[in-house]
């Protein structure tokens, strides 16, 4: 097995073995504490430009399959693991993790002291870094130079890379898989809706939407259409949707002024539901500001307090930025807060029929404690149509 290095911008480096596609990948190094769901994470568009460290030790154990995906391919910039399974042990598996990484040209590294990486990020904050195959300690200086020469994660617009280029309708197709009998499929905007999708129309602003969000909307009988991220409010409202979904997505919300401006114009017109990046953009449209967290929330176990019910939801999270509001913010309720660090996890602007959550109620991967959010959206739309 060839050696490989994980090098951080400050010159810290970790030794490991080459995994996946041979080469070099530069990106923001983050960690995720999920103990399952590496395939969903790899394919989640929100990880664009990031090198994901899995804190869980054994990765790849159950292989990969065609159904547990959150987009049409691997989106993460790279993968950092302690142990990569050489074997896929699950009846659903169609390939090993290695094969998958190789086929998707994903550069990865195994054998790394991922706990050391995680502690470094926890203490010093998220940092740019590189996975480099066939490198030794002697190469570190050169690699650091290349990391510094590369554009910073926060300066890149990943949303335009992830978003659809034209409007597409979303339907479900059968898989024959016992565990995930249906997955999403995109069809043209003239393809007739299947019978089950007889419900109201939902326009999804695609900033890098996860398939799980789309699937859950369709499962509620909604007619779901995804639109490019740069669709204007005028264009979108021109399609007469009954509700608007602001999707998750990658990158710094502070640089998406155009998207925020369009959202501001949509407010009050139709019920709006935002998730993750969509929540941050809605927050900005409502007068809040976003800021970068030291190292983000990425994992399956973030406790969120539902302020209305005073109950705790265990949520899946994946975000490096958060929203905050000044003391003078009006017409906004904080509906959810993070019990670990007190950050805003959900908000509601009743007068605009808009609400959003920072976490991922669609899970994929992670717990589904907050699945009811999708029913709330459905109900909100139904109410507005009454």
């Amino acid at each position, binding site marked *: 097995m060839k050696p490989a290095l994980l090098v951080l911008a400050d010159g810290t480096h970790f030794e490991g073995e080459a995994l996946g596609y041979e080469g070099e990948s530069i990106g923001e190094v983050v960690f995720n*504490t999920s*103990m399952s*769901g590496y395939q969903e994470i790899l394919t989640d568009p929100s990880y664009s430009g990031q090198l994901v460290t899995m804190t869980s030790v054994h990765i790849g154990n*159950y292989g990969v399959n065609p159904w547990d995906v959150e987009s049409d391919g691997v989106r993460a910039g790279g993968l950092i693991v302690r142990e990569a399974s050489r074997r896929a042990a699950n009846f659903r598996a169609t390939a090993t993790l290695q094969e998958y990484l190789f086929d998707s040209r994903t550069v990865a590294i195994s054998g790394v002291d991922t706990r050391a990486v*995680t502690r470094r990020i926890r203490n010093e904050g998220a940092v740019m870094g590189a996975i480099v195959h066939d490198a030794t300690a002697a190469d570190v200086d050169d690699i650091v130079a290349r990391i510094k020469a590369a554009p910073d994660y926060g300066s890149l617009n990943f949303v335009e890379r992830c978003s659809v280029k034209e409007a597409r309708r979303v339907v479900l197709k059968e898989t024959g898989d016992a565990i995930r009998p249906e997955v999403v499929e995109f069809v043209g905007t003239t393809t007739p809706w299947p019978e089950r999708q007889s419900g109201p129309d939902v326009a999804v602003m695609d900033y890098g939407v996860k398939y799980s969000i789309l699937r859950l909307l369709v499962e509620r009988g909604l007619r779901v259409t995804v639109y490019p991220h740069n669709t204007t409010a005028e264009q979108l409202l021109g399609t007469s949707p009954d509700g608007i979904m602001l999707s998750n997505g990658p990158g710094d919300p502070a640089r998406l002024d155009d998207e925020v401006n369009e959202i501001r114009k949509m407010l009050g017109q139709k019920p709006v539901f935002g998730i993750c990046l969509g929540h941050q953009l809605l927050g900005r449209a409502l007068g809040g500001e976003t800021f970068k967290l030291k190292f983000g929330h990425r994992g399956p176990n973030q406790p969120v307090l539902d302020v209305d019910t005073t109950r705790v939801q265990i949520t899946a999270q994946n975000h490096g930025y958060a929203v905050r509001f000044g003391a003078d913010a009006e017409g906004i309720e904080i509906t959810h807060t993070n*019990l670990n660090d007190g950050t805003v996890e959900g908000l509601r602007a009743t007068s605009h029929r808009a609400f959003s959550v920072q976490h991922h109620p669609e899970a994929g991967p992670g717990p589904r404690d907050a699945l009811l959010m999708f029913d709330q959206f459905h109900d909100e739309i139904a109410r507005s149509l009454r």
Partner: protein
Amino acid sequence: MTRVRGLPTFVRRNSDAITPLGAMPRRNDINSILIIGSGPIVIGQACEFDYSGSQAVRALRADGFRVLLVNSNPATIMTDPEIADATYIEPISVDYIREIIARERPDAILPTMGGQTALNTAKALHEAGVLDEFGVELLGASYDVIERAEDRGLFKQAMNEINVDMAVSAYATSVQEAMDCIDEIGFPAIIRPSFTLGGTGGNIAYNRQEYEEYIRWGLDASPTREILVEESLIGWKEFELEVMRDNADNVVIICSIENFDPMGVHTGDSITVAPIQTLTDVEYQNMRDEALAIVRKIGVETGGCNIQFSVDPATGRRIVIEINPRVSRSSALASKATGFPIAKMAALLAVGYRLNEIPNDITKKTPASFEPVIDYTIVKIPRYTFEKFPGTTTVLTTQMKSVGEVMAIGRSFPEALMKATRSLEIGRAGLVPLLPAPGEGDMPADEAGVRSYFRELLRIPGPDRLWYLADALGSGLSIEEVAEATMIDPWFVDQIARVTELETRISEWNRTGGHFGTDEGATLLRKAKRLGISDAELARLTERNPTEIRAARHAAGIRPVFKKVDTCAAEFEAVTPYLYSTYDAEAEVTLEPKEGRVIILGGGPNRIGQGIEFDYCAVHGVLALKEAGYETIMINCNPETVSTDYDVPGRLYFEPLTFEDVMEIIDLEQPEGVILQFGGQTPLKLALPLMRAGVKILGTPPDTIDRVEDRKRFGALIDKLGIKQPPGGTADTIEEARTVARRIGYPVLIRPSYVLGGRAMVIVHDETELNEFFGEARSAGEGGNVLIDRFLNDATEVDVDLIGDGTSFVIGGVMEHIEEAGVHSGDSACCLPPHSLSPAVVAEISKQTIAIGRELNIVGLMNVQFAVKDEEVYILEVNPRASRTIPFVSKTIGHPLARYAARVMLGETLADIGLTEQVIPAHFAVKEAVFPFTKFPGVDILLGPEMKSTGEVMGIDRSFERAFLKAQIAAYNPLPSEGSVFLSVRDRDKDALEPIARNLSEVGLSIVATSGTAAFLRDRGIEAKSINKVAEGRPHIVDALINGEICMVINTVGGQAAIQDSKPIRQATVKYCIPYFTTMAGAAAAASAMADRHRDPSISVRPMQDYHPT
């Protein structure tokens, strides 16, 4: 405790929009809470409930509740007088607990901390109307919840209502009913007759013809003519989730566990792994969703519960197997595996707190309402003691047979697995080969033969299957072949193959002249250490000495690093010093040299002969040193224990107790010294290697161990002191043994050196028996000769515990055994103070004990065993360490001897501590042993020098008789007050039988006896009915036992023939749970206790705090 009320303050600061939470939910209407313990250690219920229970008591007391405790097991930390407000060491039975409730009037009972025993007792208290009578509420699990979870019918119905799948099954009481249900169940079908022991009559039918045959057989085998026909889950995978719920319906999963062994092996006997390794996220989340639905449906109000699932690896179909609405062995493991203290949290949730109001114990900054994530791998391996029960099968089934377990933490599964294998302390440094090479022994020589040999062998789950699996891989079987034969997930097999592949590579490299000084050697070493392979195993592979490997490893700079267990995979900083070693890049734990560090070694896995008593001592050692201001470091690998509660020591290393692992910690910690006295034989074995490595051993000097174990040196010692010893000698060969035995005369007692629990100890009556048993004794020892002593017939055995500070010595207690010498001291009941020994004998014993203590310079504890025959005192054995009886003695006399021992080891004197003379209690305490015979069908229950009990209870009261009675009730051997007693004793016991029989008649029991015994009794004017022996034709005594006509059995036997003849009687008594005595002394004590109860049937209970007011 620090409480996070409502929201942490930092939440408020950042989010002004939040409305304050409602009123604080703590149950202020409750003041006092009774916690029920789990009683004696039995298979399936071990010290995990001491760990859980003591956590619960401490948490509730710290929160201001008055906490009452009942537990019959004295060897527990929870029954220490300072833990609860009132501690009752009384039988866990409805009658006694009723008395406690009447006296203490608690507001509530928390029944979820004491295993199945506590749940069943709570249920019985409700059914007996006691809870209603005194207005006592059940916390954590109500009567209805217990019913719904425990009653198979109700559980099934509840699961149906929420669409949770279960195995298809049906009960049938006739062939027709069985035939009617098979279409729904399908083939293969499992047939289980009801109420048969050990699965008698159970079968798997693959087709209709077999099915018809097996159901008839099953119906016949069942005493109730009932069979359960069940869908076969052969080869399905087994998973467990540990779930917590609070009264606001917040539910979290604390830990997910995957069984290495497939369905069919009891989860307590399975190797288990955390977290789950082979499920996709969707599958895991589906299971999690279902767990939440089940907890809500069953209505578990607050606290922890365990849910077991099974998954078909071919289709992903999942069924629920069972739910335990309480803390459990699994929850103890989950707590140690994650760092989340389930029992402590469950106790707080039971009194109304919510998960988000309690801080996470480890991060202190985040709330407990989260799901731990782990960045290491946990492996648990059960510990068996089949060698103690010859005649029983070692096949693992749904009936649990292991007596203990080890847990290991490694970054990867192979590393954790290798650490676990050497933690077991079964003389294996890792996955050593157990089977001969092809062509040797009964291993076929050809490849095809080897393959079919292994495929056959691997099908059967047994304690050694893990090793056979590695042997199979090493012999060239493919991962697929091994996975198919064992039905163990190929992922696990593949991970083990990583180890066997590397081991093969290393031994080949060695054969071709490889040496460790090279780069290649260092690379191989590094790879091996990362997979967890021990120095000792590498030494075996490369035909070197472990010290060479260690030196080569250190020369190459290959050392383990220590990382923290923190519940959160390093997302937050951990303040709790709970550590494990791994071979990885970053040393997370680095220590500055500092004075005042002491390491205490724990006892490793529970096994017969070395159990909770030693953990009790180790914990006391830790507490004493902490109080004295030392930085106290615990090393242990038993997840069930209090010593591995990270709240207890200053730093906890969850590590194997081998020289290699311990030494790496010592190198890091640089302690002032190491204490070995408290962990039983396990740490004592390390005494010499550690001393040679320059480590300071605190307390009694290690040479003392050799001085008492080495026969010649011991002989010299007692000669010097003028103490008598039964004549004896040592032998290395059978010829020598015969010579010694002839010289001293039969019967003789033979035993190996350096073993605990009487392993391979046996009384032999003639040369034939000597020939038979010598070999085993020779091989069971840890080197050294076999000891042969004249066995003293009908002597009384006495155990003495002593504490010394090197200059002054105080007797802790003199315990008179109830059973005569020849029964292992761990299996014998005993009484403190002695109830029948003469004052002169007690004085002589005390004098000799103190003389030995002085001669051996005891600093700490020492245990001496004596035999008394005809007023003459003989010494049998000296153990210069904490003994099994220390907790019992400490509780009886009101002085924590283990704690004092730790203090004297660090230089205090007994005068400083305030214990200068022996304490003679004004009351009597009786210790009684508890046996696992029901789990090992086919094993004879006669007691002998090899210890067989798993646990003990204590009865304490104002007289010997009353204390003995309580001990019997507590040991689940309740003495009857009506019915027929069966008596059958050997001739020389007949005289002693007369007073017993008279007592029994007096209390109103009728006597049934074999013809000889009956004739003798009638001759003495005692009425007795005759009954046939088994050989005398039917109806015979076994028929009467089965028919429930006998309420108690007294049976003593002489020679081997009589033992064989009467074995069916003893087996029936075990099978039908009939109280029995196999010694005259035990029977006499029982009869006098029964007579005493007949005169005064009142029962009294009294808290320990009353016996020993402070």
